[in-house]
């Protein structure tokens, strides 16, 4: 069930009314859990088996961890289980294909059978969310959640179940201890977030995908200008798509009195790659920081090991996004670029003399270069796109001016937002005019139907 569809609207209205109606009873949490399972099962009821299994296992693992002196064993069981689920559904095909490639290089005529399994929606997100609970408990950072219903609601909370934000137990579980205070401010903020998210997704991301998809489906047919513009368009598409989803998720949760973390903070205004990752998919980047980078040693063991840890973390992050070499290379590019900008920031010249605008352009360019690998349908296509951008001629691309105007307006908004003129955007009449404009645009301009969100495939 996508947020920007009629069935979701009907679903949410029913869920919210009953949720609010049950607020003085203990059953509001049970209703939230049931609603979350209905939401998740809408894609495929069989997915529920996995999420229930994963939930039960981690719930009981922590119980045994609490009672056992060998906590590490139970932690390993939890992590192995979650990573196995992820590995099987997400990486089995990739591993098999590469293993068969290696075997064929050695002249082995036999090949491993490729499992044909459907990737359950949201598995990358809820396994990570559940794992963070067991790890944080192991570290002594949180107490065991005694209520199975509450824990299950934490794992499966429908606004953030399928594409994040990946919430920490310490942030979300306390909010589920008692029925939240829902104020008119919460409803208004929820509505604001939802409308902005809806606009980003329907008006912007879905439109840009119509520009990007035909170019990336057939890169050999396009020259440098078109490939470049499509790459820039993809940079905006994925931002609007994912941040739009997150805004809607946060809006829906907020209307229920639940606060989800900020996941995007104007990432294309970053002045370094480190800054970029503090603004892009914040819940994932902080997850990897806390559960991969820091345990590897972080920056506490010298420069070489810091770079090694950074590299490994980013490559694993790339792999998290998808089972393909293109995602690994995407992660590696970000790792190298992060190291380079980190060193550059320490220099007198770069740190103080290079204007912020130039840094932003540099970072945006590097990020777009990396997006080529993220979006391309294969490694061969990615390399072809890079080579064609570098070598083919330039002709006037058939890029809609309308799209340029839209993206230009958004970019101006973001610049204004982080400038001294931000106050202009906060004038109530300006905000109301923007809201009216967005709603009328949504009512008049886009075509029907709701495209799926990009991050659902992860």
């Amino acid at each position, binding site marked *: 069930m*996508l947020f920007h*569809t*009629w*069935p979701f609207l*009907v679903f949410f209205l029913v869920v919210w009314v009953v949720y609010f109606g049950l607020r003085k009873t203990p059953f509001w949490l049970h209703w939230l859990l049931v609603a979350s399972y209905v939401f998740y099962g809408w894609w495929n009821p069989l997915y529920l088996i996995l999420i229930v299994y994963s939930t039960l296992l981690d719930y009981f693992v922590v119980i045994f961890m609490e009672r056992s002196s060998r906590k590490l064993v139970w932690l390993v069981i939890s992590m192995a289980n979650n990573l196995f689920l992820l590995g099987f559904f997400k990486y089995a095909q990739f591993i098999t294909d590469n293993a068969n490639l290696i075997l064929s290089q050695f002249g082995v005529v036999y090949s491993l059978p490729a499992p044909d399994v459907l990737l359950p929606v949201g598995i990358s997100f809820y396994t990570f969310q559940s794992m963070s609970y067991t790890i944080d408990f192991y570290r002594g950072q949180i107490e065991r959640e005694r209520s199975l219903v509450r824990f299950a609601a934490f794992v499966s909370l429908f606004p953030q179940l399928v594409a994040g934000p990946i919430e920490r137990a310490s942030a979300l579980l306390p909010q589920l201890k008692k029925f939240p205070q829902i104020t*008119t*401010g919460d*409803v*208004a*903020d929820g*509505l*604001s977030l939802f*409308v*902005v998210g809806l606009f980003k997704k329907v008006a912007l991301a*879905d*439109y840009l995908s*119509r*520009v990007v998809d035909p170019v990336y489906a057939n890169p050999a047919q396009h020259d440098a200008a078109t490939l470049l513009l499509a790459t820039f368009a993809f940079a905006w598409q994925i931002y609007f798509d994912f941040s739009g989803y997150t805004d809607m998720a946060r809006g829906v949760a907020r209307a229920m009195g639940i606060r989800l973390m900020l996941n995007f903070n104007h990432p294309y205004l970053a002045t370094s790659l480190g800054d970029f990752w503090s603004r892009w998919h914040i819940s994932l980047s902080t997850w990897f920081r806390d559960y991969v980078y820091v345990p590897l040693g972080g920056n506490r063991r010298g420069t070489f090991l810091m770079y090694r840890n950074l590299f490994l973390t980013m490559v694993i992050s790339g792999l998290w996004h998808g089972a393909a070499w293109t995602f690994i290379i995407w992660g590696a590019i970000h790792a190298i670029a992060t190291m380079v900008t980190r060193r550059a920031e320490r220099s007198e010249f770069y740190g103080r003399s290079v204007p912020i605008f130039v840094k932003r352009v540099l970072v945006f360019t590097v990020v777009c270069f990396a997006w080529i690998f993220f979006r391309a349908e294969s490694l061969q296509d990615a390399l072809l796109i890079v080579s064609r951008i570098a070598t083919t001629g330039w002709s006037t691309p*058939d*890029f*809609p*001016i*309308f*799209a340029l105007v839209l993206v230009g307006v958004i970019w101006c908004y973001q610049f204004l937002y982080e400038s001294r003129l931000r106050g202009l955007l906060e004038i*109530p009449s300006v*905000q*109301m005019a*923007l*809201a*009216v404009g967005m*709603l*009328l645009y949504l*009512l*008049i*301009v*886009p*075509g*029907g*139907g*709701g495209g799926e969100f990009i991050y659902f495939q992860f």
Partner: protein
Amino acid sequence: MRLSLRQWTVVAVIVLLFVLVVPIAWTGIESWNTTDDYRIPYGLSEDYWQYQRFVGATANGSRKKILAIGDSVIWGEYVTPDETLSQHLNQLAGRERFANGGANGTHPLALEGLVRYYARDVRDASVLLHCNLLWMSSPERDLSSTKELSFNHPRLVPQLYPRIPCYRATINERLGIVVDRGSTFRSWVHHLRIAYFDSQSIPDWTLEHPLENPLGQVTLKLPGPKNLPHSEPVAWTARPMKPQDIPWVPLDKSLQWQAFQRTVRLLYSRGNRLYVVINPFNEHMLAPASEKRYRLLKGDAESWLQAEDVPYDAPPVLPSAEYADASHPLSAGYARLARRLLEQESFQDWLVEE
């Protein structure tokens, strides 16, 4: 962007005002030529907002006319605008009494939706309703086939109930259509797309016209109907064809017939005066067994109309050369039909009462 609940209320009021006022104001600023032989231009066949505007003005305007409603048989697929049934009736009657409210491709399930949602203004008016039994000729035409099919005017057919087995739209698509049908504003938005953007959404249109300004497309002038037949007016006999063994769906099992019945009742419930014309189908192309089934079907249709006390005529088959295909007459065929109708006592009585 962060608005308070009060500010959201103001936003909602502004948007609501826009939604209510703009379609009404639009009718005052957008021009369209209505000649006496006007019919909805072919390119606007799915522009239900425009259809609503036309039939509302015709049935209830200062020059109130009898609205002929039906599919492309009424619209006149193989004839010019002044050679349609309604125009031949006008010519024979000596005055502009009839208007062409035909809409291309509107099988009975779609026609029901068109009348229900976009002909609400047709009240206390006189309506000549055509019944084309072609739509009951097979399970596919009847939309009672269980195989998924694409068909005309999916936005007009019942979305939730009764169930149409071959219609496989998603719940989201169906709910979206239900919402659109209840909103004059959304119908107006579709009108803009169909009339000015080649029936595409604006983003899709900009992809095909990347360097053009979409605002420049909205000229506020609707295209008029072309003074040409939409299909070449050639008799069906010019195309060699074996006799067709058309299966025909019995009326008691036919979804299209049930829709037709609901349309009749709906028109009556709005205080309209109704006269039904059944086909005439091109029986020359039917194999003997199929012709026999057709005659039974037609008889059942007539029996129902008699039982419901609906005045009607079921003209006999036209001469073979006056058909363009299975159900569309050529100009001479329409002329013959018009003459026959005006000679019918039931039709004359109905006209007198009007």
